[in-house]
């Protein structure tokens, strides 16, 4: 679907993307990373808003540098921040976006009605977009990205500013698009549960580089085992000790931590380390690996377990 080959993007002296080489498979792909990791920059580079200083990019098999217009006709983009065409009601706005993407006016209007119903704005489609709540604005951004039935959707932080119910509904829509409607999509987010819920494949970015990537199920399952651990003693020091021994650990609560034990090692190593440090293990329970574990391992541990 999307391929980047040795791509670098520089803003002044700041390298936002550093020699990124990655391929996005078809289906629902999550682009995950902390703020400033380079996710949005990558999307903007793929859309042609930002020109890379180095490397090549292909979207849907087309070169971004030379076929930008053809690519934009086949993709949908839901931007991160609030955006709309001022002075229009929802259905006019979405139909207008459809026309700009190449739909005949009659088809654009018909699709606008359908898509607005699909995203849950059917009853509010004659209201001015300026009067919409934050959640409704997120939905209409999705509608304008969908109206021309794109081959690939770029969704940049689609649940930003939404209440829990709205967020669940938005994620359900994205999941439905990716899995039932067979729309290829790239979901750019810093929220792990969003990506875990809606995507099958994830690419984790950090500091302008790809930290790890792969199918979520594989990443969660192939990196060894995860334990919930509670100790009596100096918790930060023990985390350092664990990391020093190649076991990634991070706190989840006041005195509970999650320890990622790589394949080939076991819980006995944790007990042995605690014993050498004179600490009591109060609680140790096997846990199910989550995307958060993968993420933290990739960001803090350099992707030892999965890359």
């Amino acid at each position, binding site marked *: 679907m999307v391929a980047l080959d040795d791509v670098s993007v520089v*803003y*002044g*002296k*700041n390298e936002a993307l550093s020699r990124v080489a990655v391929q996005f498979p078809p289906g629902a792909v999550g682009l995950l990373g902390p703020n400033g990791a380079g996710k949005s920059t990558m999307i*903007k580079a793929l*859309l*042609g*808003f*930002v020109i890379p200083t180095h490397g090549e990019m292909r979207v849907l098999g087309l070169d971004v540098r030379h076929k930008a*217009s*053809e690519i*934009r*006709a086949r*993709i949908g*983009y839901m*931007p991160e*921040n*609030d*955006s*709309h*065409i*001022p*002075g*229009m009601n929802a259905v006019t706005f979405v139909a*207008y*976006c459809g*026309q*700009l*993407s*190449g*739909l*005949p006016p009659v*088809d654009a209007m*018909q*699709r606008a*009605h*359908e*898509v607005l*119903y*699909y995203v849950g704005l*059917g009853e509010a489609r004659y209201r001015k977009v300026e009067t919409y709540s934050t959640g409704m604005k997120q939905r209409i951004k999705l509608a*304008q990205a*969908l109206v*021309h*039935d794109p081959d690939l959707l770029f969704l940049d932080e689609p649940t930003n500013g939404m209440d829990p119910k709205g967020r669940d509904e938005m994620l359900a829509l994205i999941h*439905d*698009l990716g899995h039932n*409607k067979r729309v290829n999509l790239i979901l750019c987010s810093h929220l792990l549960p969003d990506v875990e819920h809606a995507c099958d494949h994830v690419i984790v970015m950090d500091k302008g580089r790809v930290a790890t990537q792969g199918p979520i199920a594989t990443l969660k399952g192939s990196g060894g085992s995860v334990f919930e651990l509670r100790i009596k003693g100096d918790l930060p020091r023990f985390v350092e000790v664990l990391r020093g021994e190649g076991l990634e650990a991070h706190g989840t609560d006041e005195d509970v931590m999650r320890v990622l034990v790589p394949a080939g090692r076991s819980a006995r190593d944790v007990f042995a380390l605690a014993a050498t440090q004179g600490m009591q293990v109060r609680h140790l329970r096997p846990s199910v690996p989550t995307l958060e574990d993968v993420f933290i391992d990739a960001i803090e541990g350099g992707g030892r377990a999965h890359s």
Partner: protein
Amino acid sequence: MPIHDQSYRRYTGEKRPVRSAWLVIARAGLMDFLRRRAFLALLIIAWIPFIVRASQLFLATNFSQAATFLEATPQTFRDFLSQQSIFVFLITVYVGSGLIANDRRANALQLYLSKPVTRAEYILGKMSILAVLLLAVTWLPGILLLLLQIAFSGSFTFIKANSSLIASVTLYCALTVLVITFGMTALSSLSRSSRFVGILFAGLLIFSDAMFNALRFITGSTAISWVSVQASLDQVGDLIFRQTPRHQTPVAVSFLVLMAVIVVSASVLERRVRGVEVVA
């Protein structure tokens, strides 16, 4: 599929290559303004001078006594277009100030430019809105007056005697609209506030004109008329209508000033109309 079916479906119709996105933008923008009552009122008022001039032509061609002081000359058409400049100003402020500023305020540029719309098409679409509405209060009534002159007099004598008048009206209107449209669109791309843009446009026109008048008063010469956009338009307009230039500035200099406005505006638009603002 009925409209109440709330599911998403793939589009099976034909998508056409988008080669005229600017037309879609221009049409939507024009419809937006033509739906506003305040703007329609302004448009109607802008056509009142046309009715007055049409009455003048009617009287001059049908009543011989009136013809002595109401007879149409090329100057009549030049004066008519000069009178329309107040409406050109009002429509430019009303329509032009928000053309890009409103899109910048609503972050709409990234939406436009994520579609198969190039920056040039976007700018052309936005400029077309203002240009069409300005031509509707300058060129269109000007040409209609010429046609009415022929119709009322029942002969082509006037138009044969002044064969260059159609070209003069067209050229002068085109130049005025081009300079003002470029200038206003560029100003509109500089801010997110349409009010600020409107004030800036008015300020620049008034300031440059005031500066010209002050310098004329001090130096006693009109050779400095190039500092005023309006004076430069008048100067070139005189040449287009084959009249004696009203200022001492060489017409070529006035023309260069107008071209400079267009070039600078194009450069501003090239820098300001982007899908993303990068602060390095």
